[in-house]
Structure formats: C-alpha cells, structure tokens
C-alpha cells in the first residue's frame, strides 16, 4: 500500500486536477456549440464537394425502409 502511495506523485495528481479547472457551465457550452458549428460547416463543405450527406441519407433510407433516394 505504501509503495502505491509513493508511485502516485501528489504534485502530478494536483496538476492533473488543476488542468480541468472548474469553470461556469456557459464557458464549456459556448465551446461545445462552436465545435458543433464548425463540424456542421465541415460536413456542408464535404457535402458540396462529394455529396457525402446525400449519399449517407440515401444509404440510411435504403437500409431502413428500402427506399431509393
């Protein structure tokens, strides 16, 4: 037991704890929605170039209800 306590360096554990500092919820929500928005833009860009969203929807339709297009 003592050996385990020696292995876990308390300073490093404190650093890990501090890295995820407590911030208000809106701080994280803002960044989350920003990430979602940029992901959506990426998808729109890929769809414009390669039609990936349309192909995916067609694939889902075919797989689920046998519709084509």
């Amino acid at each position, binding site marked *: 037991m003592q050996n385990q306590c020696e292995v876990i360096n308390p300073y490093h554990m404190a*650093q890990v704890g*501090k*890295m*995820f*500092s407590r911030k208000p919820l809106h701080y994280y929500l*803002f*960044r989350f929605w*920003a*990430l979602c*928005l*940029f*992901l*959506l*833009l*990426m*998808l*729109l*860009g*890929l769809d*414009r*170039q390669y039609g990936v969203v349309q192909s995916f929807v067609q694939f889902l339709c075919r797989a689920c209800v046998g519709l084509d297009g």
Partner: protein
Amino acid sequence: MNIKATRVSIQVLGLVLHNLGLTFSLKTGIVTPALYCYACPLAMFACPIGTLQHFCALRILPLYAIGSLGFLLTAAGRSFCGWICPFGSLHDALGLVRSRWKKTALVKLKACSAAKFMMLLAVLAVAWYAADTIYCRFCPSASLFASIPYFILNPTSGVPFYFVMHMLTLVVVLVLALVVGRFWCRYLCPMGALNGVFNRFSILKITRSESECTGCGSCVEKCPMGIGDLSAIGKSSDCILCGRCVEACTKHALRFAT
C-alpha cells in the same frame, strides 16, 4: 517526459505527418492549421492559406476549410504554431543555432499582432482581386518545402523567375529568424494571425495563478514570441502555447488548462 521533449517529439512527428504524401497518392486534402505548402511533392495536407486564397479567387465560401480550421483551432488555439507547424519548427531550430551563437537574442523586439492581421487581410484581398493565389509565389514556407524539391525533381535549363523570388524571400526570412526569434511567426505569418484569433476561445490554454505568481518574469524572458506582459501569456494572439513559460516558472504558477 518533460514539456520540451514532448514538444520536440510532436514537432518531428508533425514534420513526418506533413510529408507522408510520398507517392502523390496520400494527398488527403485535409486542412491543418500549419503553414506547409500543398504544392510540395511530399505534402499530405492542404495549406490553409493556399486553400483560403484559392476559394477567394473562385469567389466561393470555403465551407470545409472554415469548418476544419475552426474545429481544430477551437480545440487547441495557436498551439499548432508551437507544436506542429514545420516552418515554426524550423524557426525553433534556428533559435537553437542563435542561442549557441549568443546566449540571448540579438534583437529583442516585442510581438506585434497588427502586422500579421494586415498581412492576412492583404493576402486574401489580393487573391480576391487578382483571382489568383499571389501570396503563394512569395511564401517562404513554399520556397522551402515546394520550390526547392520541385527544382531538384524537375531541373530546367533556366531558373524560373518565381524560383528566384522564392529564394529571396526564404533567405531574407531565415536571416531575420537568426536575429529575431520566430521572426516570421511574430510579425508576418498570416496563418499565425488566423490561429491567434482563436486563442481567446480555445479549449486548451495556459493559465496563470495570480496567487502563486511572484512576478519574477522568468516566463516572459523565455518566451520565443517576445510577449513582454505577464497577463498576456496564454491570452494574447501572439502566444503559441509552446509551454516554455510553463517550464520556466519555478513556482508552478503557469499551467496548461482547459
């Protein structure tokens, strides 16, 4: 592993990753926020500045480039400049040469955000107006990673005009980088300007604990970007989140945080 060893390892990995398009078949088209020319015969990723210019010239909104850049930069801010960008890594290597040559930088100049932003706006405006990727013909990163390899692979009878222009800009930038640490990243890099905008909103950042900070200034002394203000560390658009200040702080008042 300490921060310096981790950073150097990631910089080497970044250089290898950017050069994985060895056979022309691994060109992914993924846009990464690092200044690395997509015209390089080995390039695996697309240069964001080249891509944005291309779409400006075509007068089309670059949805994919904005989305992927925004996603990566919201996550990690300008750390791409300090940890991944091959041209930034070259500046770090030149910094090592400089530090052996003389212990401190020969010229101590403060970082200047305005010049970078003006450069970015000018690059995009010129691409829009001229309907061409004009900046790419002068880009020092393209000089190193595209012009020289192409010239070696396709030796022509004469030396093309733009090759001479590329070499001139490259030599000027490298000489200035020997005198001022990270010269290009500090004052002129349009990619750095774009990345810097996201420093305020990024998830990864460097925070300073005011209760633990004694104001000794060892962090700003080590800053390769010349940030002179303690309160600007991790917040300024000039901060590349390289972590040298975190290493230098003996009181552990600075740390990477989310």
